[in-house]
């Protein structure tokens, strides 16, 4: 008899659901993709229906991400009285905001099912370790706040995952990074990746020391503890009010990123000291900082695993794995809603040769923040106007670069440094003048490599593109516009095509 377990993250931000049937991930998706509300905290009816369909019925048990009461206790301690007292119980938030009929039916359906919960950082650690290729590893989790924990280090050996260090609220590296994101006029808890990109435009040395001295106590070389001079839960909008020009903001972004890298390096070093292992798993929202990830990659000689959805959305999977305490077969991040049909290789190449830009929405949607081929907007990376063209379509800031996707066997010819299939590291572009759209101002690129096993359709597309143009790579960005969730279904793809005037292919037509 098969066992179905659902992991659910709902109620705070980035809602998601994962269904694991007999130890295999059969479906995993973000709520925002169906509700079309960025970082939606509710799980929409459509996502739940998709999960029911993929699982073949209701689950045998449900695991919620986070310990609700622990979190409320912290919220009370922090002064978030309204949230702590008025937030409905997680289980009642499960369904949706306005489709109460379905909600009631759904709750009745689940009535009596055993429910569990996995703590915030334990879920992160489990999502990373149990999907990794390692059977022993050090696990470093850095994020804003869970229930109380903000930074943890774990030791994984066999199926056992043991916490060896924990740091609690209000000392939080993630909160500080979000506070700095808000300080330079961006949206905290959402636009951190823009700060990372903006950093390349500024001088990192100008404010690095000031930022560190004003916010951090000196680092202790014998402990991973990071102590802050103030609680940054309400941001730091009033800090250094005289710095308010665009260049100041760029310098602040650069300084912030430089300080983060310094702190991250310290944490990786301390992880190495505390856990004797050649392998490292990095998780938590901070693991999306691909510039810093490259530091860990170097320090562990490439033996680093970052689950492609390391933030809170990925923890619906972590919640299940934290309960199961077993390794799971990780085949890739293509786990969401399926658009059937052959991957549109010929049509895409044809469109790229005519217009230079094409969208593809085909196969299972990616579970994670990056579009890795199935909900992607591709463009010819050669030429000076490509970046502006795609940025205009996507309504993004001009300075922001795009990522390249390249055939794995050609990656070393064009890039120098760590690369991987999930766009998690940055490497130097060897010829930025020929490919200005995929190289940042500091000539780095966030490279996605592809081989036959990872994604046959995308591999064939790049092979055909190389055969016809001599270029083995394409610009790859998510099929959305700034501030919108990625396209999910055929209907979304059609709407996107009609609104933004770029052809979106959902299957190969004859």
């Amino acid at each position, binding site marked *: 008899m098969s066992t179905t377990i659902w992991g659910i993250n709902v109620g*705070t*931000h980035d809602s998601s659901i994962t269904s694991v049937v007999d130890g295999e991930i059969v479906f995993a998706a973000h709520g925002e993709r169906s509700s079309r509300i960025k970082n939606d905290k509710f799980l929409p009816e459509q996502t739940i229906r998709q999960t029911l369909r993929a699982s073949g019925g209701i689950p045998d048990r449900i695991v919620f991400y986070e310990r609700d009461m622990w979190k409320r206790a912290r*919220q009370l301690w*922090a*002064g*978030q*009285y*309204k*949230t702590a007292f008025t937030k409905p119980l997680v289980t009642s938030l499960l369904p949706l905001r306005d489709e109460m009929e379905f909600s009631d039916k759904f709750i009745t359906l689940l009535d009596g099912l055993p429910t569990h919960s996995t703590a915030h950082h334990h879920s992160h650690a489990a999502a990373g370790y149990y999907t990794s290729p390692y059977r022993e590893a050090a696990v470093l989790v850095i994020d*804003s*706040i869970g229930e109380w924990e903000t930074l943890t280090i774990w030791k994984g050996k066999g199926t056992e995952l043991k916490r060896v260090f924990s740091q609690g609220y209000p000392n939080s590296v993630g*909160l500080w990074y*979000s*506070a700095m994101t*808000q300080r330079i006029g961006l949206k*905290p*808890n959402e636009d951190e990746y823009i700060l990372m990109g903006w950093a390349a435009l500024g001088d990192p040395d100008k404010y690095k020391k000031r930022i560190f001295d004003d916010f951090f106590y000196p680092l202790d070389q014998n402990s991973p503890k990071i102590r802050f001079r103030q609680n*940054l*839960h*309400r*941001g730091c*909008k009033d800090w250094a009010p005289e710095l308010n020009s665009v260049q100041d903001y760029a310098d602040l972004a650069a300084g912030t990123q430089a300080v983060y890298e310094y702190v991250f390096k310290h944490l990786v070093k301390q992880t190495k000291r505390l856990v004797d292992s050649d392998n490292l798993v990095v998780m938590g929202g901070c693991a999306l900082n691909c510039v810093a990830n490259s530091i860990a990659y170097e320090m562990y000689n490439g033996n680093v695993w970052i689950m492609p959805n390391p933030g809170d959305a990925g923890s619906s999977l972590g919640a299940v794995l934290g309960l199961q305490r077993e390794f799971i077969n990780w085949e890739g991040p293509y786990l969401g809603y399926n658009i059937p049909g052959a991957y549109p290789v010929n049509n895409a190449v044809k469109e790229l040769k005519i217009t230079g830009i094409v969208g593809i929405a085909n196969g299972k949607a990616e579970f994670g923040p990056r579009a890795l081929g199935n909900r992607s907007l591709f463009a010819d990376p050669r030429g000076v106007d490509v970046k502006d063209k795609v940025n205009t379509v996507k309504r993004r800031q001009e300075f922001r670069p795009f990522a390249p996707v390249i055939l794995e066997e050609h990656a070393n010819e064009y890039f120098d440094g760590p690369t991987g299939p999930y766009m998690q590291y940055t490497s130097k572009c060897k010829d930025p003048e020929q490919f200005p759209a995929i190289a940042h101002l500091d000539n780095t690129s966030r490279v996605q490599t592809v081989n036959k096993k990872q994604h046959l359709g995308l591999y064939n597309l790049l092979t055909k593109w190389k055969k016809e143009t001599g270029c083995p790579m394409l610009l790859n960005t998510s099929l959305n516009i700034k501030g919108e969730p990625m396209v999910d279904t055929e209907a979304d793809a059609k709407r996107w095509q009609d609104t933004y005037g770029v052809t979106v292919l959902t299957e190969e037509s004859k």
Partner: protein
Amino acid sequence: MIKWIKKKIVEWKYKRKVKKKLKDLAKKDPFIYD
């Protein structure tokens, strides 16, 4: 009795002041994370 009433008024004023302060703070600097 008068003493008790006076004490209650002081308490009430204090609570009102704290509540207002928290409200202003939330308006000026809301929490950036739940």
